[in-house]
């Protein structure tokens, strides 16, 4: 079977490609160039730098399958960077990897893959896809390695995506993936994992937002829940819900960011006990099975990639919306992040946190 593998140059997607090639598939490696590597003042960091593209090419060369680098600058800017910047400006804390994964890696790549006669798109995500014979549908499961599970980033995939998706490392631990890399003699076997946002290698998110969306004055008041002014801040895009450091406040008790209000540049802070919330609403909700549940459903829900999921009742609320009520308060519910729903091992869907 001809399979297109999305190769970032990292160890996970390299091993994914290697295992498929080893299994006898007709593998085509595709990498995405997301930025003009010459013109950009921002040198690229972990995910898609020139070195990484060359790493991917080297792996393909060593394993003996064709590899192409696609120019996705326009798509990346339109689907990821622009949205990232405007989300910050709107007082939310975006998670660009979801758009990149679902809209770019799966949708755009699947479009191209079909043109190349490929039956499937594979990636190096730690997640699994299985076909449920009884329900006649595809199910997305967590990666076997709980510490590396990346199903959170894939909640917006559809049945159509999953029908053509392969995650060859989803049933492996990271340790096993590195062992496979060594066994296959891949040059990337010892390459460190990437963590930061790939298009902001220096980690200066605020600076990135300011360069892409200049404004004269972003400063505003820091207030407590009662509206009392406690200090000044340098822009809501510099803050996220639950943040404690960098506020420059001299109150007795530690204060945390509770709310960002970009319209009047107001930041509300409060003590830690005010940070917990049991309810949130989400929009652009995707149910991987296709149709939303007809009644409130007891699930677990995760509000950040690095958080654990927690028991919650999820109630569909018309037009791709949902209300999530947790069994116990959750710290730092952050608009712009994804809330992802699980039923045991299965990722059943998710949406974007509004409030």
């Amino acid at each position, binding site marked *: 079977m001809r399979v297109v593998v999305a190769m970032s140059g990292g160890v996970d997607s390299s091993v994914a490609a290697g295992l498929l090639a080893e299994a006898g598939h007709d593998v085509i490696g595709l990498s995405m160039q997301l930025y003009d590597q010459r013109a950009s003042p921002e040198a690229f960091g972990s995910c898609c730098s020139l070195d990484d593209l060359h790493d991917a*090419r080297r792996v393909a060369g060593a394993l003996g399958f064709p590899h192409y680098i696609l120019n996705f600058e326009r798509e990346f800017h339109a689907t990821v960077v622009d949205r990232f910047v405007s989300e910050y400006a709107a007082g939310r804390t975006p998670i660009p990897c979801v758009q990149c994964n679902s809209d770019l890696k799966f949708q755009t790549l699947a479009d191209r893959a079909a043109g190349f006669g490929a039956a499937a798109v594979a990636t190096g995500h730690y997640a699994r896809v299985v076909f449920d014979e009884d329900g006649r549908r595809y199910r997305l499961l967590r990666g076997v390695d709980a510490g590396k599970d990346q199903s959170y980033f894939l909640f917006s995939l559809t049945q159509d995506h999953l029908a053509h998706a392969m995650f060859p490392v989803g049933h492996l631990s990271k340790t096993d993936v590195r062992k496979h890399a060594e066994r296959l003699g891949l040059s990337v076997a010892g390459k460190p994992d990437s963590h930061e946002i790939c298009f902001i290698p220096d980690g200066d998110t605020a600076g990135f937002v300011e360069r892409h969306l200049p404004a004269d004055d972003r400063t505003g008041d820091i207030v407590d829940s009662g509206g009392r002014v406690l200090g000044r801040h340098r822009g809501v895009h510099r803050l996220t819900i639950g943040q404690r450091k960098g506020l420059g406040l001299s109150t007795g008790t530690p204060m945390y960011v509770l709310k960002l209000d970009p319209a009047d540049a107001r930041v509300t802070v409060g003590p830690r006990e005010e940070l917990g919330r049991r309810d949130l609403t989400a929009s652009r909700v995707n149910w991987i099975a296709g149709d939303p549940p007809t009644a409130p459903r007891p699930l677990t829900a995760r509000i950040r990639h690095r958080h654990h999921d927690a028991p919650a009742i999820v109630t569909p609320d018309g037009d791709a919306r949902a209300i999530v009520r947790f069994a116990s308060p959750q710290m730092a519910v952050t608009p712009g992040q994804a809330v992802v729903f699980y039923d045991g091992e299965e990722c059943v869907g998710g949406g974007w946190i509004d409030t």
Partner: protein
Amino acid sequence: MRIYLDFNATAPVAPEVQDAVARAMRDDFGNPSSVHAFGQRAKATLDEARSHVAALIGGDPAEIVFTSGGTESDNLSIRGAFEAARTSGRRRLVTSGIEHEAVLNTVKALTAHGAEVVTVPAGRDGIVDVDAMAAAVTPETALVSVMLANNEVGTIQPVQRIADICHQHGAWLHTDAVQAAGKIPVSVRALGVDLLAMSAHKFSGPKGIGALWIRRGVRLMSQATGGRQERNRRGGTENVPAIAGMGVAARLAREALDRDALSATARLRDRLERGILETIEGTAVNGAPDRRVPNTTNISFDGIEAESLLIALDLEGIAVSTGSACSSGTLEPSHVLRAMGLPQAFARNSLRFSLGSTTTDQEIDLVLTVMPALVTKLRRLGRTAAALR
């Protein structure tokens, strides 16, 4: 079977060239600067190659400087001329928007050293605008750089007329003839140029070797200072095996031109072009069809990303190309097609087919069999994808 239609990127090395390189490596290992017999033998190989290379462009062997390739020749020419002319107050460099990056990025780099760069556009036909050139060249102009044949669309530039303009103002004319040498008859005297760059691997010679023809009387500042090789114009021990290979490649190219062998390539190119235009809707040729090198055609395909078509063709075993590749090897909108004033879409949906002496009728047949279905499929998928968004 794999079909190679990317001769403008590089051409397969001719067997006679392979033999010449191996022979020189084995038998002529001496240093051409050495006094002894070993050195003299290597020097003789060098001289013979120099004669063949000079003959390909109607120059004198003493006017040939061997370099590492087209890019170095362009650099030596442009930087060397700019530095030599700067003392006389000539700081203007004039070039065209359809030049190779070896020229464009070199003149751009010289702006940091006081150069005033003027870039003249080309028309839709892929021919540099001579009137605009006449307006751009002034008595302050040090050098004008215009290619002889364009690498992407194959159009032959009015270099002779531009030479007249240059010389009225006392400016030198450099021509990047990398895509012309070996494809059309070239005479430096008839063209009236002062400097001409070429690259061996474009006419079935080895990679990493090229030459700059420097008209007698033109003084350049050397860019690689060192020993006195190449008449003090480029230091460093000569790459004798590669030069020997370039010499043989130049001889073969001249012989092919003399017996009009390229008309066979032109016939195949025209058949490919006609076949595509007739069987695939929404296709058009970029660049003046009657003023091109015989091996090149550049065709736009409505509603298709050239990138996808190129990959799909490669998976079918057919190697073609688009504009220049960038550092990662991805394709970017062609600066040549944009400089010709073509819409942005054209710069993204055009493919270059460049043929060579080994191209056969069967290969063209196969390409014409495969392409229509591929294009139809990619267009259908593209429309579906657009509708889904």
